[in-house]
């Protein structure tokens, strides 16, 4: 009786018990992720935070890149050659290059002071975070202009 009634037309595979984890992981890879980073409202708090990280990383990539390049090829990257190449560039490119270097340096340094002030538990209210954030932006702009037109 049971043999006649219970038949289904379904393909059945024999699998070990550990395959359940593999099937679950394969399903999870195909599932969509809920948007988080792409939909968060732009705010001074996290924009300044990621800008601090990006500027720091960019300046460090420059430092690491130049040092490793000098280590590998000291004659190509020695100071005389580098200064010669820079001196040969047009004025506009020189000013643009200085701005591209000065802006991240100024922002990272002044925002770094803001971070250090948080580490001694100062300016930790929402109001202070925003006011110090705007102060950092203003000071960075002024410093960048000062650095670009310095000397």
């Amino acid at each position: 009786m049971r043999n006649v009634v219970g038949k289904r037309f379904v393909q059945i595979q024999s699998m070990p018990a550990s395959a359940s984890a593999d099937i679950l992981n394969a399903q999870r890879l195909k599932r969509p992720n809920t948007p988080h980073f792409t939909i968060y409202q732009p705010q001074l708090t996290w924009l300044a935070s990621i800008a601090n990280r990006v500027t720091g990383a960019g300046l460090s990539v420059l430092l690491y890149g130049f040092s490793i390049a000098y280590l590998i090829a000291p004659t190509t990257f020695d100071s005389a050659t580098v200064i010669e190449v820079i001196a040969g560039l047009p004025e506009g490119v020189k000013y643009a290059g200085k701005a591209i270097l000065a802006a991240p340096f100024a922002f990272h340094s002044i925002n770094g002071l803001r971070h250090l002030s948080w580490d001694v538990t100062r300016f930790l209210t929402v109001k202070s975070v925003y006011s110090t954030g705007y102060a950092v932006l203003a000071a960075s702009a002024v410093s960048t202009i000062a650095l670009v037109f310095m000397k």
Partner: protein
Amino acid sequence: MSTSLAIRSALPRARLVTRAPALARFATSGAPYAYTPGGPIIQGSVNDPTAFPAPSRTHGSHHWAFERLLSAGLVPLTAAAFATSGSSYPVLDGILGVSLVMHSHIGFDCIVVDYLHTRKFPVLGNVAKWGLRAATVATLVGVYQFNTNDIGLTELIAKAWTA
């Protein structure tokens, strides 16, 4: 087994009676897990909680304090580098070079730990971690070579800025 338990204790007989069927079911069904209140905890599945690193001051509070002190120390160092940009001071170049590279290494390490943690990226995370350490060593050697055999970091920036 369940009958001997029932005979041995007369008072908590009600509790044993409710327990005995569960144990009896376990004895005959061949299920892999004994009865535990709240359910058995299965290790090794995708539902395992993350493992926390052992508490250690070296990797915790001391590392944090060192990072902040280093960042704070870079402020007077950079100011000194700006102030002495006319002439070359090898000691300042040396200290600034080492401090900058250490500061950059800590920053890069934070990036790798945040975005390429070994828990989620077992291969790429380890490649990034050790690749960063190798790059930092190479950078330290390169900075030393540049400061020794060439004009030094502060002089290079000063001359390149006014080239």
